């Protein structure tokens, strides 16, 4: 088992063109075995690019191919409408890796999805994507570093530390059910909490490796849920030694209170029963130790 995506997931690449990022990564994803069933581009309907049938709209692509996931790597000005188009067409899992989408657009898209399209899940934006090793990879994660077969579910805000963590698990001989890079933007479509709930339900996942980061309170929210989880969680918070970031006026201080620091997050996670490690290597060793003892 895996969460969110597997070998049956059918992916449409939105905004495809011969020079697009979406095609570049989509071909890598296809080479890994991911079912890339269609591309969309309003100006290129009817074309075939690298063997991928291109449709003018996501709706057509869904009708013709049964696509149920989409991959968006278009520039920030077009990404919000691409996400909504996918949801309107009934896409269940939308992966958007686009960086630098204005926070106002992210917030609006998030609330529209929640209100109008509750069955669509957005991963990202500004994330590396998702990999269920041996089954599917949507996004920019290098598949050569992943190991299939489970039993560890992995979720991370940071991109490169996500790769580092997958790699370290693989080096320790520990496979992954699914690795989810949720991204570090202010309004993520999918949170730690969403992933933890999915991993808790997933039979094949026996332990979870969570990589948090300073700022926000997503890790604190995750910690609340970890208290009720039956599966062990190992966590690493990136930025233990980072200088305190700029405060967003008094409002920022009032809203965040004492939350957001690495120390506060580590304490919340540790109090919730997670094993908190000081760096990715130590964390991966802890995961390996726990998994071998199961």
């Amino acid at each position: 088992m895996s969460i969110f995506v597997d070998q049956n997931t059918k992916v449409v690449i939105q905004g495809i063109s011969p020079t697009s990022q979406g095609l570049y990564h989509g071909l890598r994803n296809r080479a890994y075995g991911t079912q890339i069933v269609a591309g969309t581009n309003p100006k290129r309907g009817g074309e075939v690019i690298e063997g991928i049938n291109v449709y003018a709209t996501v709706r057509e692509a869904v009708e013709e191919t049964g696509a149920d996931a989409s991959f968006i790597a278009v520039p920030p000005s077009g990404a919000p409408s691409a996400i909504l188009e996918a949801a309107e067409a009934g896409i269940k899992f939308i992966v958007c890796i686009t960086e630098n989408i204005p926070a106002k657009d992210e917030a609006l898209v998030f609330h529209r999805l929640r209100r109008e399209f509750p069955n669509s899940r957005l991963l990202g934006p500004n994330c590396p994507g998702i990999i269920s090793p041996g089954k599917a990879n949507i996004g920019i994660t290098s598949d050569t570093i992943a190991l299939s077969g489970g039993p560890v579910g992995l979720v991370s805000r940071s991109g490169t530390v996500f790769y580092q963590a997958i790699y370290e698990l693989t080096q320790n001989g520990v496979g992954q059910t699914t690795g989810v890079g949720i991204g570090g933007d202010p309004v993520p479509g999918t949170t730690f909490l969403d992933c933890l709930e999915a991993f808790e339900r997933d039979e094949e996942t026996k332990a979870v490796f969570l990589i948090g980061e300073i700022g926000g309170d997503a890790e604190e929210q995750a910690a609340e849920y970890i208290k009720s989880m039956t599966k062990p969680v190992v966590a690493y918070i990136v930025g233990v030694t980072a200088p305190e970031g700029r405060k967003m006026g008094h409002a920022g201080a009032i809203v965040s209170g004492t939350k957001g620091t690495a120390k506060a997050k580590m304490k919340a996670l540790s109090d919730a029963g997670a094993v908190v490690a000081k760096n990715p290597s130590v964390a991966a060793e802890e995961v390996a130790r726990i998994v071998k003892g199961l």
Partner: protein
Amino acid sequence: MDLYEYQGKQYFASYGMNVPQGDVTDSVAGAVAIGEKIGFPVAVKAQVLVGGRGKAGGIKVADNASDLETYAKQILGMDIKGHIVKRLWIQKSPTISKEYYASFTLDRSVRSHLCMVSAKGGIDIEEVAATEPEAIVKTHINPIDGISRETAREIAVKANIDSVAVDKVADALLDMYRCYIEGDADLVEVNPLILTAESEIMALDAKVTLDDAAAFRHPEWEEWQNLEEMDPRDRLAKEKGLQYVGLDGYVGIIANGAGLGMSTCDVVEQAGGKPANFLDIGGGASADVMASALELVNQDPKVKSIFINIFGGITRGEEVANGIILALEKISHTAPIVVRLDGTNAEEGRSILLSYKGDNVLTEPTMTAAAAKATELAGVK
């Protein structure tokens, strides 16, 4: 991007908000001219991007031209917490009857906008939040629905805004919200939002942080960007498109990815070292970008050793290694360099680096080992 107070007020005014009459200047003569034009008394306010200006003596009220001249001379060039005052905002001093607080920002924990209003503005609002949290009315705003005039009024009433001012505060909140949304601000904050003796509502201060990601749809921001206070190292980094933050230590750090960069700082500290900087060169790690990064770190006289930490994902190990070698040939470095290269085709990359005959460059297989080595080579006790 943080706006100076005067820019924030100009931004507020462009969304219809009431701000005191005033102007900005970079000279004493300019200050006096503005004072004479708008009439005394005027407030003379240092324009720096740091809090605590009042306590530092950066804000004065002048009753006449000669006082204004004295204060302008005092404040221009003043050092406020490391920020040198280059500009003054001269504004007409209104008669203050009440001081309120109002702000809009994003509450990340619920992924909604948050409006905060209090009748206890002016004084330390963070203190109010700590001791009397109920005195600050917090209202989440769904971005689809926005804020209606009814809601704005309810917020004002709930916040104990004086009844004579409720309607005008509600109007001000609507303007502020528009500034926050249409103006793509991460934060708009007014403290104090004043009720004048003439029963007007006015933003006496302005704290605005713009969302840099939205710059593509705000050409009007460009003139402000050029005025940003910037550390010379930060400026060079920005020109080269690198994410750089100067720190106080002596181990120069180059990593790909912000998370890995922070994580690298963590392991250096854990090894007993002190990072001289945080530097994220992005995903690709091409030779050109690597050369710029090395140049930047190499320029810092505090740097005693350099730790290059690259995780090869899509970019394969041998490409990264060749990039590093090309970069090394472009610059002359004296500090020893420790490279940790991991991920896709890391073995190939490491053997390329091993065969490189340059001085003072070595590789380590893991992040922790490389952090220990770089710390040791820095030789700082």
